[in-house]
């Protein structure tokens, strides 16, 4: 299986580090392009092009950390910040526009109404992605319960 363009959405969670390491390892063989994106989701009470210094700083810090992790893996990655209403459709749009052939998405253990939940973004991407998707689930003590 060959991947030439890998898209990795990051959100500043515990799963980011391992997801990007995995992307770098997968990419190395075919010298693929790895692009990490951070999506700032703007609530509907603000215009879509409103600038939030705190959110941009959080995005920048997350991407800087991700770049350091990639550097430790000896792989160079590209990073981008996008601003949108919803993360799921934005990831899919980005994959279409950039002709991505793999989306690597990391999730951490979450509960909703007492049940394990994947959230909204990962299922949307799994359902609508125009390419292969690898879901990386971050192991935690809680998920082992």
């Amino acid at each position, binding site marked *: 299986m060959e991947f030439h363009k890998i898209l990795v959405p990051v959100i500043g969670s515990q799963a980011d580090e391992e997801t990007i390491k995995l992307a770098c390892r997968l990419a190395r063989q075919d010298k693929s392009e790895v692009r990490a994106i951070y999506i*700032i989701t703007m609530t509907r009470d603000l215009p879509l*092009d*409103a600038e939030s210094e705190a959110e941009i700083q959080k995005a*920048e810090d997350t991407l800087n950390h991700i770049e350091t992790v990639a550097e430790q893996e000896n792989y160079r990655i590209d990073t981008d*910040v996008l*601003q*949108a*209403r919803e993360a799921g459709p934005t990831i899919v749009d980005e994959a279409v526009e950039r002709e991505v052939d793999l989306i690597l998405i990391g999730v951490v253990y979450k509960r909703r109404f007492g049940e394990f939940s994947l959230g909204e973004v990962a299922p949307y991407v799994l359902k609508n992605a125009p390419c292969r998707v690898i879901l990386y689930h971050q192991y935690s003590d809680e998920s082992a319960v």
Partner: protein
Amino acid sequence: MYIIIAGAGVVGFHIASLLAEEKHEVAVVEQSEEALDNVRSQLDVTSILGNAATPKVLREAEAPRADLIIAVTNSDETNMITCFIAKELGASMTVARVRNPEYSGYFIGAAKSLTAPRKVVRPKTFGVDLFINPEVEAAKEIISILSSFYPTPVENFADGVVQIREFRVERETMVDKPLSEITLPKPCVIAAILRAGGLITPSADELIKQDDHVYLVASREFMNELGEMFAQPQRPAKSVVILGGGRVGVLAAEGLQGHGISVKIIEKNINRCQEVAARLEQTAVVQGDGTDRDFLIEQGVPLADAFVATTESDELNILSGLLAKNLGVSRNLILITRPANIPLAEAVGVDVAASLPLLTARKIARFVLHGGAVSVALLGGKQIQAIEFVASPTAHIAQRKIAEVGLPKGAIAGAIVHNSTVVIPADDHVVQPGDRVIIISPLSVTPAVEKLFM
């Protein structure tokens, strides 16, 4: 590392001297023959005459093989263009000093439709990996000091969980006591002692002297309690007089206002007074001479909780800080441009709030380190540095006891953060992969420290 510095002003010169001291290969590009002569006569670096914002000069400086370009000329635009061209030529990392706050470096790009995602255009998009605004950093430092209990700077590591703080020894109970006899109430390390401008690596039989500056490494929650052992806490400032209506003065005033602190600015230039008054509605702006004792008394300086001198002249700042101290103001902070003047200011009893070249150096220090360094602070002027590393599973230091890792002479492991818990490591403590390790060491042994994390 091969590093090119564009601009040999005060900031460029001091960064070049710092990097040369750390044994990096440094080239300085400068348009002024006079400034370049100053570099040639004092530093062992390559010097190139010319405009760094041109491909020809950057090629001459071998930008394509540069690991880092630091553009610190007086012009924001020149700095940005230099970074852009250098990046296009193949330089790995670029840093630009940008003083105009209007250039935040970020803007939201256009979208295909009203509901389509917007791209956030970042400085990286046009070839600048890091924007540095020393004036903003200086203002932040002033605000941080004035809103805390001690008149000395603090450095944060591991997302603020660990702090390194400088305290001036004021308590008589601590004076002339060997370190081995001092029992501190909480886990901490005395990382260094600054005495008469010289730095001492503490040993067990070292005696603490009055007016020494000690650097403590501890968990943030214990820092105030530990500080009380050495220094007299002061109440955070409620009224502040700032001398100088320049960029730093105005930014500091804006920030202090935000903390509910009453601010008065003294500025000599009448036109600048009017500009500042128009910008800062809640701040009293008065025109006058900061070295005129009667004028300072008339303006209520003796009643202020703190006096901050932020003019562009080191001499004026030191003199006015001394005058304010003489008038009974308990906290006197000044801004210093030339790091060589710091010992002089401290010798006359004025607290140095910030030094622009050192603040700039601190911001870029992380980029010249290897081994997964995440943050760096320069302590004691620029004599030692504290570096925070994340220990990777393959690092030499991982899974080893501190005593066995072979820390270079003068270096100590100040603190380790393991799963959000701060540990002051004993010799038999084993470093785990993923731990954040804060190492304090002289600049000269930095390469040896980096190797432990590679």
